[in-house]
């Protein structure tokens, strides 16, 4: 109900500006939120660094050197200053190196994992959903809908452990864990971890994709196309195009959840990505490092969701008007 009368590019620019401002606000909220929340939690980084037998004087001294004995307002201003001047969140308390460097070092493994599993999910779900929808009500449809639900109730760590036990330890087809050099080595190492993630996500995606396809199949234009005597293949293409967008949006949300959320799979497969880094940082109350991981993950999430939104918005102006069907 906004600007249909204004020139289209101006409206587009305004909408894009809004998207960017929104993204910036989200990032700011996350950054401040993480800063406050980790400092309000019980537990002391100095205690974790110094170990059990440190004397109270040594602990006080360490707290002073880490700057965590200062009032939280002062800590916040110095945090923001460091962030704006250096782009870093400070030296990691546990590892004595730049937090940003640590995150950037671990990021590729997590990106590989997210990328590979996303691709695998699409590769599995799309044909399944299409087949099921085109054979609605048949036994194939029932099979496609019911079989994946078996993995729905399986926790990722358990699936991962079983896959390792069977395919890596017993049959020795895949590596037990860790990463191997080179692109083929990486793909080889990512096979089981991304399969683990894909098995957990496929049921959701197959079912919602199937629903979308059915809805599109039932939409007026398809009836029209059918009436016009278009070939099955042509219709299928039309259906795909119209069903894919909402599915993409739905999956965009899942992928953004995966960013920084691959902890369990990383742990089970001994992958050193940002998930395990974050967990180690939380355990040690490594404030600068927690902050760095949280920020980079938030940037990733915002990037993915903004891209999905922009792509969706450009294709379908309904989304621009806030009438987007998210589910």
């Amino acid at each position, binding site marked *: 109900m906004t600007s249909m009368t204004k020139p289209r590019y101006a409206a587009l620019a305004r909408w894009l500006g809004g998207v960017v401002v929104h993204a910036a606000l989200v990032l700011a909220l996350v950054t401040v939120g*993480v800063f406050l929340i980790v400092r309000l939690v019980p537990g002391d980084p100095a205690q974790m660094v110094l170990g059990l037998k440190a004397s109270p004087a040594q602990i006080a001294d360490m707290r002073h050197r880490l700057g965590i004995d200062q009032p939280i307002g002062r800590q916040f201003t110095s945090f923001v200053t460091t962030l704006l001047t250096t782009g870093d969140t400070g030296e990691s308390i546990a590892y004595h190196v730049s937090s940003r460097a640590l995150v950037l070092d671990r990021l590729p493994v997590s990106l590989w994992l997210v990328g590979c599993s996303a691709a695998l999910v699409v590769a599995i779900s799309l044909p399944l959903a299409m087949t099921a929808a085109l054979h609605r009500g048949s036994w194939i449809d029932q099979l496609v809908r019911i079989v994946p639900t078996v993995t729905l109730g399986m926790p990722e760590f358990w699936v991962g452990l079983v896959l390792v036990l069977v395919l890596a330890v017993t049959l020795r087809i895949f590596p037990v864990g860790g990463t191997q050099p080179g692109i083929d080595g990486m793909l080889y190492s990512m096979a089981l971890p991304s399969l683990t993630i894909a098995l957990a996500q496929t049921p959701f995606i197959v079912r919602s994709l199937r629903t979308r396809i059915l809805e599109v199949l039932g939409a007026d234009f398809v009836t029209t196309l059918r009436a016009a005597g278009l070939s099955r293949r042509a219709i299928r293409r039309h259906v795909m195009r119209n069903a894919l967008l909402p599915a993409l949006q739905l999956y965009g949300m899942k992928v953004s959840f995966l960013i920084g959320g691959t902890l369990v799979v990383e742990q089970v497969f001994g992958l050193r990505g940002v998930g395990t880094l974050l967990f180690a940082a939380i355990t040690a109350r490594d404030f600068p490092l927690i902050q760095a991981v949280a920020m980079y993950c938030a940037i990733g999430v915002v990037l993915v969701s903004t891209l999905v939104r922009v792509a969706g918005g450009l294709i379908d102006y309904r989304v621009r008007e806030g009438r987007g069907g998210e589910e």
Partner: protein
Amino acid sequence: MTTRTASSASSAVPARDRAGRPPRTLVAGLVLLALIVLAVALIPILSPYDPIAEDIAAMLQPPSPVHPFGTDQLGRDILTRVAAAGRIDLALMVGVEAAPFVIGTAAGLVAGFYGGWPDRVITLLSDALIAFPFYLLVAVVAFVTGTGMKGIFLTFLIMGWIIFARTVKGATASLASAEWVESARVMGFSDWSILTRQMLPNVLSQAVAVLVSDMVALLVAIVTLGYLGLGIAPPTPDWGTMIADGQSFLATRWWVSTLPGCAVVLVGIALALIGDGLNDARRDA
């Protein structure tokens, strides 16, 4: 082209299932769930074992007629514990979802109906929460409340409403533009009565379908928290802690974590079937 208002989507899909008869998936799911609830209710009563009484002499026995699911590290009967844990986990699943469901549905109604700044605030808040690393949130809550149900409840209160808000917002927004809303306003109906009498009944079925499938996700999340040491504290039997405690025996004593795992899988299948059935029923109505 692809406008997908609730009315056109529901009427356009050819209804294969006979009108008036609930979808087969729904029936199957409900039957399965009923069986699970029955087992969970009866087994602890009929079992000769106490789910929390240890018997070290009987530790880690494989499944046998005496202990159909075997025993765990402290010699407790796993079958009895799986059932006792089911009581807690199933109740927790429903209890934890209740508040997010209500809050999310309300937020989604408001955002979808009014648009404008309520929508913007709710969207910003939900986007920020999604961008916040989930495990950081989980850990922080657990550190503050101590591990246990309180932490799980709070975590999913903070995160759980988003999915309902988004679903309901989308559905409400497409309804709110319909002409009959305008006419209802003209006829002098208050916003409150339009929202609760007209909108809510229309979007509720979608929200419930999401609720059912979200419950499985929640159950798996609780189990995963157990693996990370952030789940329900012992001695309360819980599927998550049981699976997690047994994971290091997976190669040598498979039953310790696999059999509780099967319980979660069964619940997952039941709820997925129900969710599917509800969706079918909604579309075919």
